[in-house]
């Protein structure tokens, strides 16, 4: 089965450090989403891209977060500088058109000390 691949699966680092999370969407999917999941807030959409162009990043703190798609097979989410409140599980999902299922990776569990 085709899958969304996320790396790393786990990341522990000290506050102030830069964190980069990577995502390989399913081949042929033109829409890529970044979500954050915490116990208190649930699943929150941070940003998403279609055909590598950013469509919406309104859910993302702009001062420290950035999302890019260097090419169709790679999406990145960076946090610089990281803070303890950024600790969460970050999911990438990919899909095709609106009103079609999004398919999720298994996430990056991030802990900022």
């Amino acid at each position, binding site marked *: 089965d085709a899958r*969304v691949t996320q790396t790393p699966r786990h990341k522990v680092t000290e506050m102030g450090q830069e964190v980069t999370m990577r995502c390989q969407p399913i081949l042929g999917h033109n*829409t890529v*989403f970044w979500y954050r*999941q*915490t*116990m*208190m807030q*649930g*699943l929150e*959409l941070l940003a*998403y891209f*279609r055909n590598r162009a950013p*469509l*919406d990043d309104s859910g993302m703190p702009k001062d420290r977060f950035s999302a890019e798609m260097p090419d169709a097979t790679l999406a990145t989410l960076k946090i610089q500088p990281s803070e303890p409140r950024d600790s*969460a*599980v970050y*999911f990438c*999902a990919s*899909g095709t058109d*609106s*009103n079609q*299922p*999004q*398919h*999720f*990776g*298994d*996430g990056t569990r991030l802990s900022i000390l």
Partner: protein
Amino acid sequence: GENVGLHLPTLSVQEGDNSIINCAYSNSASDYFIWYKQESGKGPQFIIDIRSNMDKRQGQRVTVLLNKTVKHLSLQIAATQPGDSAVYFCAETLNTDKLIFGTGTRLQVFP
């Protein structure tokens, strides 16, 4: 993955019984709905979807029912198995890419 909320609703069922997981959605104009299953340490897994022009859709051992009058969505799992134990999320959208997720229900299957 993280489980949503400190007080996640929990449904406990015996193996072999049918399970019904309910979801109240927020927007009466939403036109597309999805159910996801999330196991511990994994991402949400697509189960089944339904569009607003339907009121029922069946998959393998699962059925989704949509009641637009009361903005209610349900997921029925037939002959529940231990492997069905997970957190289940409903999600809605109105002709956009943005899914709005519910808070989730934990399904526990006991022998």
